[in-house]
Each structure stands twice: as structure tokens, then as C-alpha cells.
């Protein structure tokens, strides 16, 4: 009996191993890529899994938009490389080796190092990295295009909206990690809030990861109770929801991030939905569509960085029913006005991207 069981288990394992190979082969088999008519083959490599309802799903949506726009002219493929970082470089190389692939898209700062490692070896392939920037001075990356987001612009608007509803003039910010992107949100928020009310103060804290929602909630509670914050934002991926929960519990306002979080709570947990002023959106899909469109039209400047912001509709605020309920018409008009001023360049929003860490820290500390 035991022997049979052991053999069965071994067979299962072997089967699994081969099954793994099987799907890999199917993915890389050049014969299943269309060769007739030569459509442009665009591959999106996701260094994680789909279903996060924000970042990666938005990238996938960008691929769908591209397919919709160009139809048979393009062939799109989305590959989930999983969160196992050891699989990322091999996948990148595999698709670079594939003769049919034309453009490889991948995102986040973790992929940048891998792309600049691989890209110079395949000069006839094009690479697009989003939400991170390649350092073009460090080598010849003329086939790589970087997309960065001006999340500070959307944050500026959100900060202004927060200042309009805040009574205590204290904002509670909980970041996932003390890194450049998170601080770019914060810098934008500070600038926006102080644009409306120069006396706005910011209580700032970091969790240290993007998982511990319990800690996010605890920190936010402490900011509300001890530091009198009455608008809070958990800029920490899924852990950020802990901050929204704390806000709903204490009856203060919160900001959402990544996706339209108020609408995701609608009908399920109205108390939370009603406390979310607005959500800061990063429209990865729009930026990818724009980049690929430019590439198809031959106007994309490979070897440079494109920075997408409010003007390109790549970042923005979620203007839903709760936004309209919390802010008066007058206040909303004020936000729209600020948006126009940012787009026209009249208001220059400070950023944390490409700035000295100490300088950014000093700016954040000055607001605390």
C-alpha cells in the first residue's frame, strides 16, 4: 500500500514537472506566433500575477486597448512570471531570443536592472519599462524606452482636496516603504495641501512592507488619536486598506490609491466608501497605449524617458459619487482649476524622483 502510494506520488511529481515545461514550451514556441503579414508582436511580462485590481491589471488592460486599437496589426501576449524573482531574467531572455517578438514591456524598478542587463544583447528588439527609469548615462540603451508617472501631480490634487475638507489641518500619511516612489506621492500631497492651506501639517510613518495591514491600521489610529489627523492616506499597496479601515472607524476622511477604492467598497462596506474623498490613480494602461501608439507611428524616441502626468491622463483622481458628495461644487471647481494650472505649467509640482534623498527628507520633515 505504502509503495503504491509512493509510486503514485512520484508519478504526480514527474507529471507536474513536465506540465511546467509544457506550458513554458507553448509560450516560447515560435511557430505559434503569426508570421504571415508580420504583425508587431508585443509581449507584456508581468513580474507578479494578474488580479491585483490595480497596477498589473491596468498594464494588462493597456495590452487590450492596444489590441483593440490596432487589431490584426499587432499580436499581444501577456505572461505572468509570478513573484519568483529568479524566473524574471530567464523569461526576459527567452522572449528576447524569440525572433517574432518586437516589443517587450515590463514594469517596476525590480525589472529595470534585468532589462538593462539583457537589452544591449538584443539591439533589434525594443523594450519598454514602466514605472521606473533606466539610467541612460550608464550605457547604450538606445532600444529601451522608460515610462515614469507624475504621481506627484495627482497627489497634489488629492492633497489640495484633503486640505479643503480638513478641520484639524493635520494629515496622516502611512507609506509602505521609505522609497522614492512612495515619497513622490507624499511630496505631491504636501505641496498640494499647503497650496490650499500653508499651515497643513503632515504626520508621516512607514510600515516597512506592503503586507501588514494590521500595522497600517494601528499607525493610522495613532495618527488620528495622538496627532489629531483628520485626513489619512495609506500609501502601501494592499496594506493601505488598513488605514481606510481606521479612518472609517474613527469617522475621519481617507484617500484611496491605485484603483478607485471608494467604488470597490460601494455596496459591500458603505461606511468605508463614504470616508474616501478620492483615489489617486495611476493609469498604466493609458501610458502603455500612448507609448505603443507612438512606436507604431514611428514617433517614439527610443533611448529616452517619457514622463506621463495629468496632461496625458496617465494619472488622475477618481471623481466618483463620494467625491462629489464630500466636496462642494465650488471646491471641485477649485480642484479642476488647479488641475488646469498644473497642465499648463503654471503650478510646478515638486517631485522626489531624481532628487537627493536628504533634500526630499528635509522637505518632508519641514511639513511635520
Amino acid at each position: 500500500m505504502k509503495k503504491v502510494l509512493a509510486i503514485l506520488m512520484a508519478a504526480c511529481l514527474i507529471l507536474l514537472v513536465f506540465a511546467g515545461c509544457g506550458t513554458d514550451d507553448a509560450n516560447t514556441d515560435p511557430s505559434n506566433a503569426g508570421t504571415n503579414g508580420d504583425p508587431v508582436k508585443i509581449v507584456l511580462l508581468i513580474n507578479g500575477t494578474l488580479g491585483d485590481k490595480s497596477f498589473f491589471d491596468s498594464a494588462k488592460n493597456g495590452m487590450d486597448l492596444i489590441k483593440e486599437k490596432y487589431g490584426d496589426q499587432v499580436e499581444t501576449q501577456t505572461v505572468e512570471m509570478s513573484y519568483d524573482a529568479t524566473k524574471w531574467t530567464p523569461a526576459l531572455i527567452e522572449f528576447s531570443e524569440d525572433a517574432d517578438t518586437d516589443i517587450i514591456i515590463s514594469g517596476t524598478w525590480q525589472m529595470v536592472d534585468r532589462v538593462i542587463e539583457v537589452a544591449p544583447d538584443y539591439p533589434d528588439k525594443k523594450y519598454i519599462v514602466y514605472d521606473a527609469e533606466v539610467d541612460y548615462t550608464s550605457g547604450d540603451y538606445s532600444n529601451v524606452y522608460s515610462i515614469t508617472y507624475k504621481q506627484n501631480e495627482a497627489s497634489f490634487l488629492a492633497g489640495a482636496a484633503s486640505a479643503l475638507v480638513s478641520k484639524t489641518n493635520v494629515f496622516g500619511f502611512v507609506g509602505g516603504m521609505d522609497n522614492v516612489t512612495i515619497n513622490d506621492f507624499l511630496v505631491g500631497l504636501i505641496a498640494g495641501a499647503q497650496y490650499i492651506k500653508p499651515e497643513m501639517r503632515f504626520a508621516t510613518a512607514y510600515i516597512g512592507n506592503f503586507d501588514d495591514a494590521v500595522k497600517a491600521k494601528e499607525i493610522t489610529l495613532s495618527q488620528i488619536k495622538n496627532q489629531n489627523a483628520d485626513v489619512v492616506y495609506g500609501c502601501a499597496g494592499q496594506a493601505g486598506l488598513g488605514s481606510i479601515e481606521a479612518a472609517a472607524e474613527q469617522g475621519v476622511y481617507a484617500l484611496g490609491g491605485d484603483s478607485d477604492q471608494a467604488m470597490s467598497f460601494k455596496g459591500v462596506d458603505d461606511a468605508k466608501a463614504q470616508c474616501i474623498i478620492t483615489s489617486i490613480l495611476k493609469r498604466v494602461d493609458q501610458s502603455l497605449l500612448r507609448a505603443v501608439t507612438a512606436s507604431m507611428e514611428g514617433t517614439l524616441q527610443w533611448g529616452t524617458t517619457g514622463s506621463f502626468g495629468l496632461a496625458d491622463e496617465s494619472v488622475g483622481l477618481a471623481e466618483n459619487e463620494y467625491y462629489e458628495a464630500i466636496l462642494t461644487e465650488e471646491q471641485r471647481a477649485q480642484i479642476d482649476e488647479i488641475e488646469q494650472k498644473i497642465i499648463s505649467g503654471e503650478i510646478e509640482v515638486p517631485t522626489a524622483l531624481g532628487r537627493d534623498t536628504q533634500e526630499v527628507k528635509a522637505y518632508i520633515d519641514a511639513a511635520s
Partner: protein
Amino acid sequence: MPEVLRSIFSVDFVYSALRLTTPVLFAALGSLVADRAGVTNIGLEGIMLFSALTGVLGSAYSGSLFVGMLCGLVTGLFIALIMAYFSLQMKADIILTGVAMNLVATGGTVFILYSICGDKSVSTSLSSLVFPTIEIPLIRDIPVLGDILSGHNLLTYLSLVAVVVVWFFLEKSKPGLRIRSVGENAHAAESVGIHVRRVRYGALLLSGALASFGGMFLSMGMLTYFSKNMTAGRGYIALAAQALGNGSAIGTFFASLVFGCAEALSVSLQGVGLPPQFVQMVPYVATILGLVLYAALRKNTKKRVRKHKRRKRGSP
């Protein structure tokens, strides 16, 4: 700086320390029971994570908190049973079984969550029920103490009750005696007719049940939803707390309280101007210091025992 001191010596701080102690305490008690039976339950983290998920699913779909609690509890028992089967019956290494369970839980919970809610990170599309908070009638009215002790989550009180129950169970009851004897010397226990494997099965199951409450507290007490990896290492901290507790339920309680305070401290210290990375270290540094202290104390005890033995041998 005085602002920080004020926030530390505040009612809120103690209140939040107690709240942060709860999940660690449940898991640490679970670890204690298993440890006294001579099995190290590394899989606490996984059990907590699975129970956190099934508790939410159970309560959301049944609309009954009790059913949700049962779901979480049964899940904890079930995973402990699997671990017991592999380690006690099939003689797999208990540490490896536990580690495997934790790894299964990280991916498995997300997989289950995705198959059921179509979401890979949080269960906010379900409206989970939450264990109620309880105001204790008389204590509530005592000025400072009332604010600290009253108004906690049901599970927080339950965890404190569990300390007493586990203490009584291990030190005063017959099955507790069996567990201890199996843990002290399995062969000796076997020679007097104690069914070692059965006792260990029982201890692991009890351990799973306790840890499951720790998990449910996270998703149905502290928060109202399941979020992937929400245990964030609390199962491991619990192992350290149990070790630090020196094998007693009361000691485990105080050790857990130390970690709860350390975590609350890391919350209060935010925004003082200290580097955030330093503040985030606090609970873990406390863990390491605790373990070093524990090891040092233990070494001393061993030395004393050895000395004692030598003296005994010396005098006929």
C-alpha cells in the same frame, strides 16, 4: 520628544499594546502546548493565515459569526492534523513540515481567495463579520484602568482567559501531566503505558486551535477583511515569545506582552524624527534580545544543574 513620551505613557498606548499582543499570545500559547509535548510547531504562521481566511469566508457566506469562528477553528485543527499526520505518523521532520505548511499557506490562501472572490490580495468584496468589542460594566467606570481594560475585542479577553486555562491544563490536569511527561522524556512515558503519539496528536491539535484564534483575530477583530500575508511574521514572533516564556503559560503571556509593547512602541515612535527603518526594527530587535537573554538564562540553569550533579556524584 515630550510628545512621544506623552503618546507612550498614554491610555491609548497600553490599549494598543494589549491589542497587538492578542494574536501573538494565542499563537504563543499554541506553540507552548506543542512544545511541552516535545513537538515544535513551526507552522503557526500558516495556521493563522489559513484560519484568518476561512473565518472571513465562513462568516461572510453563512452570515453567522459563530459559523465563521467554527470554520476558522476547524481549519486550524485540520492543518494541525495534517502536520501531525506527516510528522508523527509518516515520521517527516516536524520543522520541515511546519515550514512547508507556512509556504503552502502563503500561496494557498491567495489561491483560495482568488478562486472564491476573484481577488488576489484582499477579501474586501465580502462583508465579513467581526468579533464584538466588549465593555466590562464595572471596570469601565474606573478612570484610567477602565479605558485600558474595557472595550477590547472579545478575542482579546479570550486570549487572557486562554492563558489561565492553558496554565491550569498543563500544570494541574491529567492530560496536561501526560503532555508534560511525553515532552520531558517520551521513552519513560511510553514505559508507563502512555500512548506518546496520541498525546502528541492531541497537543498539536490544541496548538492548531489556539493559533487559529490568533489568525481570526487579525481578520475578524483587528481588521474586517483578509489580506494576503496579513500575519506578517507574527507566527514566528510567537515562537520566540514561547521560548522566552520558559515553558510556562504565565511566562509566555508576559513575553507576548513584551512583543506587543515593542510593536506598539514602533507605532508610537513613528514621526519622532527617527529613521523609519530603525523604528521598524524595534519589535524584531526585541525578539533577538529576548532570545539571547533566554539562552543566557538557560545556560546558567544548565550550569547549575551540572554543578548540582557533580556535587551529588562527589558525595556518596
